[in-house]
């Protein structure tokens, strides 16, 4: 290669690094861990593309993947969640502020700390492609951006209604497989990912990954071209289908995975065989450089950090200087503000430490104290 040739002209370049003995074993094991996957952080882009109440299951799909991904460690700052419609606060939802994934309302995937970055009409093909390629207007806040670098593993999950070669957004526009492949190529050109896992749960989903041509991509789809992906169970109380079959079994599989598990991609390919799913899930690994058997589930769904022990420290001997006082601060008199005294609740009611206890118990207690507070206030004002 050009660079190597030129640099050797200078003749200081042939360097053999000799490692001191004490370090060698330690570095071997640590570097071995690094070497296996090559990523240092994880991102997830989860998109639900359909609106209207009867597409409840697509929102539930996306939220259940969101929940698994958060449980396995990816923080909200590294997740871009796009939901095209609001099911939890929909007028037709008999149980507001909930989105259930299992019938008989067993599991509420819309928990207390869902952070939706793009909601409602903001979920468009243009915004989706802007997030992927990074061409966002400068006023976009950090939470709406995909700030990945060349050592990020990205999980992209799409669900909605699709066809042969396209995915429908918001019932009014569509994204084609060629556009998606071009967007991934743009990402690769700027090295915005180390490895990318693409999961799609729509009808004829396999057509969406046919056109990929960038390296380090692995794709899974819930059905082949010509097949429909089916929904799983309706709930008679809510009145709609709650989940799609593929994502339901994917969620069941992910519930078994914990941050330290060693399950690999071959297990993921076996999720939802035709006997359970009716459609045939497909996958594509030819663009992926590593063997799928050596890729851990937590490489994409979780966020297991590489960690090194800090061996050296710097001996700092000079004392801490007092911080430089900004001139003029002595002139401005800032009035110190205090809060008004609250009701001495702790004296009125014995309150247990809520840190380790059950949160619901805590809530019930708080409700009780609120009621009692009202009584106390009434007494005082009376």
């Amino acid at each position, binding site marked *: 290669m050009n660079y190597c040739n030129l640099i050797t002209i200078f003749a200081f370049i042939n360097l053999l690094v000799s490692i001191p003995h004490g370090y060698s074993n330690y570095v071997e094991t640590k570097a071995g861990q690094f070497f296996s996957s090559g990523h240092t952080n994880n991102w997830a882009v989860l998109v639900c593309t359909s609106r209207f109440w009867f597409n409840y299951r697509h929102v539930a799909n996306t939220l259940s993947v969101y929940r698994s991904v958060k449980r396995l460690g990816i923080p909200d700052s590294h997740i871009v969640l796009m939901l095209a419609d609001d099911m939890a606060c929909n007028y037709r939802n008999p149980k507001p502020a909930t989105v259930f994934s299992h019938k008989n309302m067993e599991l509420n995937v819309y928990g207390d700390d869902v952070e939706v970055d793009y909601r409602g009409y903001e979920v468009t093909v243009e915004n989706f492609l802007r997030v992927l390629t990074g061409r966002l207007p400068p006023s976009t806040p950090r939470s709406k951006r995909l700030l990945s670098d060349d050592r990020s593993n990205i999980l992209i999950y799409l669900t909605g209604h699709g066809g042969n070669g396209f995915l429908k957004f918001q019932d009014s526009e569509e994204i084609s497989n060629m556009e998606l492949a071009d967007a991934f190529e743009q990402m690769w050109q700027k090295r915005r990912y180390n490895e990318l896992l693409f999961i799609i749960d729509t009808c004829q989903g396999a057509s969406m990954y046919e056109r990929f041509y960038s390296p380090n991509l692995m794709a899974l789809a819930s059905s082949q071209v010509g097949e429909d992906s089916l929904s799983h169970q309706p709930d008679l109380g809510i009145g709609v289908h709650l989940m799609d079959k593929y994502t339901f079994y994917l969620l069941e599989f992910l519930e078994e995975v914990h941050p330290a598990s060693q399950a690999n991609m071959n297990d993921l390919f076996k999720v939802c065989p035709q006997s359970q799913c009716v459609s045939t899930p497909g996958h594509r690994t030819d663009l992926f450089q590593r063997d799928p058997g050596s890729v851990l589930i937590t490489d994409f769904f979780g966020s297991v950090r590489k960690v090194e*022990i800090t061996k050296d420290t710097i001996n700092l001997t000079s004392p801490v200087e007092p911080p430089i006082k900004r001139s003029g601060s002595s002139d401005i008199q800032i009035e110190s503000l205090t809060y008004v005294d609250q009701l001495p609740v702790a004296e009125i009611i014995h309150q247990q430490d809520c840190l380790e206890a059950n949160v619901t118990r805590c809530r019930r207690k708080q409700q009780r104290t609120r009621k009692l507070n009202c009584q106390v206030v009434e007494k005082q004002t009376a």
Partner: protein
Amino acid sequence: MDNSPKTENSLTIYPFVVPNLLISYCCILVMPEKQRGRYAALAIAAVVIVVGIPLWWKTTETYRAWLPFSEISELDSLQLQLSVDIEVVFSRGTLTPEQQKKFPLSHVNEKEHQVDVSIPELLTSPSTEADLSLHMLSESSCGSVVVYVIPESSTLLPEDVKVYVGQRRTALLRSPPFKTSWNLKEVLSNLDVEVEQVVSTMSFGHQDIVAALSNRVRMTKVTKESMADSMRAIKSSPGYEITFSLLNPDPKSHSLHWDIEGAVQSYIQPLLNKLAPIANFSVDSQILYYAVLGVNPRFDNSVSAYTLSADSLSHVINPVEARLGSNAASSNPVLNFLLYVPDAHHSPLFIRDHSKRKVPSNAFHSPRWGGIMVYNVNEMYGPEAERPVDININMAKVMGVFLAQLRLMLGVQHTHPPTGFVLQSPGSAGLADWELDRLLWSRSVENIATASTTITSLAQLLDQIGNIVINDNIAQQVSSAVTSLQSAVAELEAGNLAFALQYSREAILASERAFFDPSLLHLLYFPDDQKFAIYIPLFLPMCVPIVLSLLKIVSEAKKRRADKQAKSD
């Protein structure tokens, strides 16, 4: 969309229609009836072809400002030449008088300096005074290296130490053994290998350059250590945010005070000031209460303390990260440094490495993320102290660890010096000059590689999609990026490291701004097949009669010619 063809169509219809009407009217007035139709059709066709089509083409073309495509394609095959100024100074007693006489001064730029070798402190630990005095002898510019060669038997350096690298850009090299009968060339060639090793430690080596170019050149043969190094150091970026967080899980027992402003001012700011040419740094701090580690530490009876094993450290960071937060206004990478004070029930807390030994710094770091240090305070108070206990944290100790971690994160620390080398610790300055040079070299090369990749892939994209509008500001950014890149390459060749870095930084800023411009989404522009669908219903009904009449004229002309020939025959 700005370039919707519909609005322009209504304007372009007029030049088709109006002249045609005028000419047809003239024909009707002037010419006899038989020829009228013929000439009218010809005139209309002439106007359509000569005036209409060029006008339509011009008014519907997208605005594409000129880009220097030829220069960009030259950038694709970029060739970098890096030159380092090296000064090799032979101290008295290294060379025999005969070898000294034959020193070809034109060949090697050599200065005769008398180095004071009678400093006794150098016997045990080379002190900074010798380094300073050496530095005074020759003020070395950014990017250059000065190597002082001392006699083999000299006692300046301890026995097993071959090279001592100081804080400034100087190194002391113990001369390798050579015979006094050798002539100068042999001496110099013998010295070459050693000097090469010194320079590759202080400036750059093959692995460093390959790692810096990893954006363009996929590393095929890499050692595990260099892979780990390349993954640890954070990528080049115009700015960084550094956040110091104090985690207090037990505010009922400990009331912690840390003078973070003063500590940052004294210890971290000198390092950041030195690194100012590379990037902008912003520092902030926060205190988090009731923040727990995600892992339960185990009680170890042998040391009667709680321990965290090395394997569980990977799972510590995630639960904390959700609470850390970041500055919403900027998209710069964030480096987090956390100070965790264990709660009273789990004190003291120690970290064990893979071989179950205690870690002296009690800290660990994660590449490209930051570091966590555990600070035990159980010895600072007795059991009878009134809760919450006021504790002042020793910022010098804490900042010593954080500074070391920060140096690793920024890629400044030389992780594997060769055997026989002693690198002077930078101390409170934070950064040695030659370490800064190393970083500047690798950053310049990395910036140049990234900027050239960005520009070439942008040019490719704009070339492929013919109807993306290229605004003036994008063209200006691209041009300035190309000129900055060319200047940076020229400066690297000349050896002016500071200028090269500045140009490379400008190049990367301009190229990123051009590449990530929001208007370059090709989804926004109509592909060609959609254009046909819009134009055909407008133009086809008009063109069909014209074409048919032209065909009819041609066939009539042929028939007349055939008749004439038949007549003449």
